[in-house]
């Protein structure tokens, strides 16, 4: 057992994603998922939101918001599959599904936020 594992990199991503989701997701879900649809608060109009999203700072914010939490999910879900369902022997498949999925989501977010939204 000489060479150290590269697991620290995945754990750092998991931790960063954990912080981002903990700080930001409750308010996003509360507003966009419940308060605005149910009319508890006045939802911002489509033009205003689009103008907000177009701003470079918001683009970066949303890119981080969509990317890091996915890696948080990937890492946590991978271990849940190992321990909860005891299917560790499928670990290559699990890794591809989890980290591949997170990478795909990140690529999609980058596409929408940095490329296709004018």
């Amino acid at each position: 057992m000489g060479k150290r594992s590269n697991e620290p990199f995945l754990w750092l991503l998991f931790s960063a994603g954990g912080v981002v989701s903990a700080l930001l997701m409750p308010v996003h879900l509360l507003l966009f998922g419940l308060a605005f649809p149910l009319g508890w608060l006045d939802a911002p109009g489509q033009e205003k939101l689009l103008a907000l999203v177009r701003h470079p700072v918001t683009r970066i914010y949303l890119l981080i918001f969509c990317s890091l939490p996915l890696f948080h999910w990937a890492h946590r879900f991978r271990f849940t599959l190992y321990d909860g369902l005891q299917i560790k022997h499928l670990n290559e498949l699990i890794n591809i599904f989890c980290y591949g999925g997170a990478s795909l989501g990140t690529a999609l977010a980058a596409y929408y936020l940095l490329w296709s939204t004018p």
Partner: protein
Amino acid sequence: MINPTEYLPRSYHTRVSTYWWLKRWAYLKFILREASSVFVAWTVVMTLLQIRALARGPADYAEFQNWLRSPLLLALNAVSLAFVVFHAVTWFNLAPKAMVIRLRGKRLPNLAIAGPNFAAWLVISAAVTWILLRG
């Protein structure tokens, strides 16, 4: 492992049940905490769909907003909110354990690190709300 001998025929190995996590409340709480990550992923998916609808124009976005009003989505987002809040609370309470900050030789108590985390949570949530709600 001790090898079986004439005087020690075999040791008994208990198989871990697939439902080990239901046997104790602490284990169930742990699995629920880990399951919160699925709802974190859902929030990202919903946000990506929202950004796509926004970019496509007012009609698409109105359709997206209607979809969010459907009972299924409202229920899903209510459950997601509960899990995401559970993640945030457990995260802020546990994160201090990884960090050892010493002030004048004494280790800072956990509350001194968890407290500012919760405060930051409140401030950032208020800031996001303000940005979205101002006219």
